[in-house]
């Protein structure tokens, strides 16, 4: 499961291979800045940083087509950025500004852009999978070749509804990828200690769909697993379950005091399995990138995020008069 920097690059278009790295670097740069801003009180309600989990998001998004969709979790920014939402749109949303992706109505846990195929991050553990499953059903009913990926965390593996959703996808052969982004912890609970059998992939297999465990620190592995699953889905062979093993470097949310794992454990992941460092090294080894190219990606990411901060800071607040609008077309107009 560990990725060696010496691993050869598979047959990926070089430009695409570099773009994956750029996307991961952008996510990390964004999340580090966001975390900082959250600690400075700039993000009402705070946020759940995904630093360390960049390969999962990018591998998923790039393994799908642009018309395919993803529905995710409360740990949301890496998915949103990977699916193409701009740092400005995300950050302004986190600030609660009118120019945010959802006009300030959503917030960190509720980012959506249907044009990009981002079908919402979700504040309820497991619920994103439900939406993706339903979307897959819609795609099937309409006869499109769209594929949906529903993401939940390891903590979500103990939400019963997750298995209802999975079962329905299995028996109806829906074009769904059921993704468990396993970062080992749910808030401060070690998931293996509350998960009977302690093997989420095996649990999933009991619901009658192909189920695989994937190295989530290797964007190439994630990309490949997702591409294969998407192919199966697109050709009518139904859903696939993927458990993507990853790790979050920071606490559950910005500022969380961590007592439930050792610094040592974090260091081990950071130093040997970092998805960005390892992948960059691999691209360099393969001659697809040089140090200058890497520095340029880092610089671009920093500039983009700087611009996003300026954008979010300067963006206008939403108009309070609109606060109760657009709840339902049935109820929008009566005066009380």
């Amino acid at each position, binding site marked *: 499961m560990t990725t060696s920097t010496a691993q050869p690059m598979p047959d990926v278009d070089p430009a695409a291979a570099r773009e994956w790295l750029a996307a991961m670097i952008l996510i990390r740069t964004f999340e580090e800045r966001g975390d900082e801003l959250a600690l400075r009180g700039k993000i009402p309600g705070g946020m759940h940083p995904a630093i360390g989990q960049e390969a999962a998001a990018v591998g998923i998004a790039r393994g799908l087509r642009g018309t395919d969709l993803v*529905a995710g979790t409360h740990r949301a920014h890496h998915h949103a950025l990977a699916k193409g939402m701009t740092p400005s749109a995300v950050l302004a949303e986190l600030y609660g500004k009118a120019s945010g992706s959802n006009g300030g109505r959503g917030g960190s846990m509720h980012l959506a852009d*249907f044009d990009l195929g981002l079908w*919402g991050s979700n504040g309820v553990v497991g619920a994103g999978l*439900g*939406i993706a499953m339903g979307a897959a059903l819609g795609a099937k*009913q309409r006869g499109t070749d769209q594929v949906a990926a529903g993401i939940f965390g390891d903590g979500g593996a103990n939400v*019963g509804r997750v298995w209802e959703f999975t079962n329905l996808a299995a028996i109806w052969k829906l074009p769904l990828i059921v993704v468990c982004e396993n970062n080992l912890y749910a808030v401060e609970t070690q998931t293996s200690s509350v998960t009977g059998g302690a093997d989420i992939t095996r649990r999933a297999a009991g619901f009658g769909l192909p189920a695989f465990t994937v190295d989530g620190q290797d964007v190439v592995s994630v990309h490949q697993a997702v591409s294969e699953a998407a192919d199966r889905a697109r050709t009518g062979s139904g859903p696939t379950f993927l458990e993507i093993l990853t790790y979050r470097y920071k606490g559950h949310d910005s500022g969380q005091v961590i007592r439930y794992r050792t610094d040592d454990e974090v260091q081990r992941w950071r130093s040997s399995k970092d998805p960005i460092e390892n992948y960059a090294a691999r691209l360099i080894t393969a001659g697809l990138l040089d140090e200058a190219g890497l520095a340029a990606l880092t610089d671009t990411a920093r500039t983009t995020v700087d611009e996003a901060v300026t954008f979010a800071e300067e963006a206008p607040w939403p108009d309070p008069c609109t606060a109760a609008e657009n709840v*339902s*077309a*049935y109820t929008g107009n009566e005066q009380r």
Partner: protein
Amino acid sequence: MSNDETYSTAYRSGMREEMERDGTIFVLGTDLFDRGGHFSQVKGLGPEFGADRIRDTPISEAAMVAAGVGAAMNGTRPVVDLNFMDFAYGAMDELINQAAKIRYMWGRPVPLVVRATAGVAQGGAQHNNSLQSTFMSTPGLSVVFPSRPWDVKGLLKSALRGEDPVVFMMHKMLTGARGPAGGPDELVPIGSARIARPGRDVTLISYGYGVTIAEKAAQSVAAQGIDTEVIDLRSLSPLDLNTIVTSVRKTGKVIVLDEAPISAGPAAEITAQINDHAFWYLDQPVGRVCGADSPIPHSPALVDALLPSEAGVVAALQQIAAATGPALAS
């Protein structure tokens, strides 16, 4: 229009017409394809439209509603049929935290209908909940609860042509009730009440099976010279305040008849709205004739004691019609 449908066949005929009109409509739930659902609500539509459009599901209410939510967001018009509304307790996050909030958060309409048979009848405590109280307190959900075939069909059509989630409640006691139903394009707007019986003396407000009781009670007191206006709400959310307030301003006396447990249910909201919009027209406090704050027992001997009865409504009408000021004991 058809002149002789039942409450249940009116639903089916509305569904059939809409499914013919719009190929994106489909129904999902348990035991629908062959049996047509536990109340025969889609009987025959399975063979007619095929297993993709009348989809049998496992017993997985959360997954059914989630499937409906996602599919509704993705260009189709799903109808999730829970058979009994009580089973929605297994899908509350999907209904309240997802379906009801998605338009607001993300600007994406969720044209989802969640149908189930509801209301109090036989079946014991767990099959006779009054979930309308909860749904009515949920911003983003509309709630309809028709009392006759015409409105079943017309409201279903509106729901299937609207953009937002509608909880479609049908009363067990009315399953076989007969009456006319409209044609393919006769819609009943969501949020519109109807005057089931015009009158000048007392306004009697109800919905669902309560309308049946209300009409009988109104009939019965008519002989005693009490002219009761019966309002059939048809929709609980949004409420048709106009119809309610206009009637109350005319009569000055109101009884709200509601089988749901009295606390924080539809009758409370209606009473509060009348307080808000017609207080100065009231000659008497609004009377609530409601279900008791109790689970529903199995024994018919006990059930009846908990529910509004025709006799109880008659008594309430007589009392309020005769009243001219505060009663001596409050």
